[in-house]
């Protein structure tokens, strides 16, 4: 009996140390790769004049799709912001996902909209479309508003994708504020590659809390005043500048944030659009697209752009943050388990050997392991036999590692696209980094565990989704149904 516990103890203790150090090591490796990747990007683009895309007839066409639900308060500014993007051949598709408030009324009034007849194919099934609007005013030519029955974000995006006839689709959260050159900067990588097809690209998400936003435009960048959003600045910086940049270089990127991303529309359609049964539809689409390209034996890349192009508000309270984080956890799990075939599967090259396993262990499993470690320690503590010195040593190492990592992130930010220009802000960030592991991280851990819990006891979303990708289209393939998908006047289905 004692032997059993000794063995268990041995495994857990050493396991924790080994895994912890391994995790640290990988963070460092990722940081190094990210640094190199960012350096290359900055050097490459420091003197580029993106404006050449603005006036070129060879520039690709882009549909900016923004789903909207109950955004009545800010929708006018949001639309204005999107419409003022610097680009030539693009359209802004606002998809009203059955809002219950006055979103539609406001938009129709502000932009002088009238319903139009459009006939197009619904390649991906969505909730019924009520009407499609365009403006009578030629100054708003680029605006299209799709009014549909509620179906969720993924469903709304699919509706926009169906309507679009452009080469690329840019998926945005309607309340994200994009930098005016965002489309120019985002499209360049797609145009540069010749050997491999770029199927999607993601941009850095910056935190807009406390920033001055006027008429849908960031006029002043400020560090968030409240602690919770401020810590997220650190989190996002670490994640984006020290994580995703590396994965982009290694071509193992599994996630393009739903807040801002650009995709090759044909490929999105080939895989059947967004999956509407998930909470983490943005990640799952990327994984599915990558998987598709691997299966088709086509060379491809998913890239990441460190340029801060998108600013969005993040949860300012722990409660809202909690909901977001456990949703993210569930989203992660959905994608990871749905596509478990990729796990260490050499057929999928980087995606299978690095991308998926990394996400599996480090994004999903790490919090669980941490949790086990804590439980273990609590048990030990109750039994009154812990070796406190060692415990504090370990804790110290972990704490200072986390703080150092954050400092590196701040340095990255400083040396690259630093947008927080006030001296005091930097100092605030440094001190926030010191507080994060104590006052913030435990909550994040808790949210993650809660997410796991919800996933396992909640609705088993993946049960009904064994058939993925193309099979989705089977939903619409029926002689009669095919006709029903053609939209006629005022969205009345034939």
């Amino acid at each position, binding site marked *: 009996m004692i032997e059993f516990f*000794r063995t268990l*103890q041995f495994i857990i*203790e*050493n396991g924790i*140390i*080994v895994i912890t*150090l*391994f995790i*640290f*090591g990988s963070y*460092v490796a990722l*940081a*190094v790769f990210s*640094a190199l990747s960012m350096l290359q990007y900055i*050097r490459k683009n*420091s*003197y580029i004049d993106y404006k*050449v895309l603005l006036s*070129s*007839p*060879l520039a*690709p066409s882009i549909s900016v799709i923004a789903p909207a639900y109950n955004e009545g308060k800010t929708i006018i500014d949001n639309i204005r912001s999107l419409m003022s993007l610097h680009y030539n051949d693009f359209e802004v598709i606002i998809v009203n996902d059955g809002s219950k408030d006055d979103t539609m009324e406001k938009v129709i009034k502000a932009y002088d909209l009238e319903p139009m*007849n459009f*006939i*197009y*194919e619904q390649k991906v099934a969505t909730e019924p479309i009520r009407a499609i609007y365009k403006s009578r005013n030629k100054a708003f030519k680029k605006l299209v508003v799709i009014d549909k029955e509620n179906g969720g974000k993924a469903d709304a995006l699919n509706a926009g994708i169906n309507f679009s*006839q452009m080469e690329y689709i840019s998926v945005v959260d309607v309340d994200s504020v994009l930098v005016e050159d965002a489309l120019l900067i985002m499209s*360049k990588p797609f*145009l*540069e590659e010749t050997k491999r097809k770029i199927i999607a690209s993601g941009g850095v998400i910056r935190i807009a809390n406390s920033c001055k936003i006027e008429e849908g435009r960031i006029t002043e960048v400020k560090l968030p005043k409240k602690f919770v959003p401020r810590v997220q600045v650190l989190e996002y910086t670490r994640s984006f500048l020290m994580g995703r940049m590396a994965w982009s270089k290694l071509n193992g990127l599994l996630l393009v944030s739903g807040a801002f991303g650009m995709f090759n529309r044909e*490929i999105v359609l*080939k895989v059947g659009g967004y999956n509407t049964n998930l909470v983490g539809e943005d990640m799952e689409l990327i994984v599915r697209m990558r998987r598709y390209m691997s299966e088709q034996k086509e060379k491809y890349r998913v890239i990441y752009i460190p340029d801060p192009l998108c600013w969005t508000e993040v949860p300012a309270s722990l409660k809202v943050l909690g909901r977001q984080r456990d949703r993210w956890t569930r989203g992660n799990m959905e994608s990871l388990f749905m596509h478990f075939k990729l796990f260490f599967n050499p057929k999928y090259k980087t995606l299978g050997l690095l991308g998926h396993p990394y996400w599996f262990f480090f994004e999903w499993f790490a919090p669980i392991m941490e949790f086990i470690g804590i439980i273990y320690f609590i048990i030990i503590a109750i039994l009154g036999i812990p*070796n*406190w*010195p*060692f415990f504090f*040593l*370990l804790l*110290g*190492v972990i704490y*200072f*590692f986390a*703080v*150092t990592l954050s*400092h*590196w992130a*701040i*340095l990255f930010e*400083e*040396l690259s696209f630093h947008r927080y*220009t006030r001296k005091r802000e*930097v100092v605030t960030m*440094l001190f926030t980094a010191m507080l994060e592991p104590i006052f913030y991280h435990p909550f994040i851990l808790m949210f993650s565990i809660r997410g796991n819990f919800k996933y396992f006891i909640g609705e088993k979303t993946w049960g009904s989704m064994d058939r993925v990708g193309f099979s989705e289209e*089977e939903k619409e393939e029926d*002689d009669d149904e*095919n*006709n029903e998908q*053609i939209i*006629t006047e005022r969205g009345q289905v*034939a």
Partner: protein
Amino acid sequence: MILSGKKIFFAILTTLLIQMTFNVKMSSAEALSVISEKPVMQLISAGAGNTLFLLINESETLAVSGHEVSQSVWQRIRTIYLESPLKVKVLLVILVYLLISLFVLFLVIIINRQIKTIRRKRERILKQEYQEQLADFLFNDEVETIEFRGINTRKNRQIFIDELRFLHSNLYGETASKLRDLYFNLELHNDSLRKVYHKRWHTKSKGFQEVAQMDVKDANDYIAGFANSKNSIIRVEAQVAMVKLSDEEPLAFLNELTWELSDWEMINIYDTLIYHQINIDSFEAWLDSENYSVVVFALRMIMLFKHVQTIPRVKQLLFHEQPEIRLAATKALKPMDSAEYIPELKQLYRDESYRLQEILREFEENEKDKKPGLIEARSLEDILPREIRYEIIESLTTIASADEIPFMAEVARDSHNSVKIRMLALHIIASLGQEGNHKLDELSEDADTTLNNMIINVKQNPES
């Protein structure tokens, strides 16, 4: 400072990485069970008051209590370290390392921020000054030249060059020439040439841009050498520079290009041609290039410059083996507005339709269930044939005559075709006068719901 900051950064990062790897190896080789092992506590602690750690269990006396009080702190720490198990050693080392690097980082960040703020402010002031001086110089005849502050520093000269260049890029005519003269008078072309010959590629690229814009031809041969460089960034800058700087044959580099021309490169080359109003008589020579991307580029140029004289050759390319070239050729004919290539377009349409059928047949055989209506292959292969077919019908929009009505009717009727292409065909029919309308009515007679809806829509919206 940024440069040295980066060096420190990388130095620390590298050593950290090495240390990490080393430590991980050691740690996993270890096999001690540490927690709840009481003797270990003795080893860790060393004398009351001088310990870094606290004792938990008083019943254990310290094996190390024999040490004399007179030992220095440093020696005591060394003892603690040396007598600890490996695992603890590892963690202690890491901890110390982290504390040091944290401290260093903290300082680096603060100092860097300070320096940046100061520098930024200085630059802003300089910039404004230069802008004023440049604007004044341009329009004030009394001002012959500019003596700008800080002319002796490379960095300041660079700021000045950037402002001058920006202004120059927005102007043409007498004013632009004046700027160029100033640029030479102040010997700024030397700075640009220095960059051109620099070893770092991103500096070179900037240099290429500068000499190209300001028309400094001294380094033409040197730059031409990079138009086929492996480094795609240098390559595009060299190409664009050569287009501008070459006295004859601005596109000569296309003949030697062994790399695939990316869309970005094509966009930049075209932009340069337009911007500087460089005339190319004919792109026909490049239609025979072995580099297919060059052929595509030539076709796109023919399309944009509407070189009708090349139509015969373009027609031939409609049947090239590469689908990308076929597509580019189709698009190239679109703006030409001539009926002379209608037969070829229709032939290509049939060819592509056949190809599409083959692809879909293969797909159908592999798929269990058969789906009626529009079928899309699982693979990416059907994308180009579909696009080509659509472009063909679009080309025919402006040149179709009543003769084409039967052909269009077929396209509209075929339920395997996408809605997009069928609608287009219907629009074309509708635009062909009475005969067209008559055909539309004929079509509605035995049309299914889908087709009927499409016809109704077309009738209601004559211009799509």
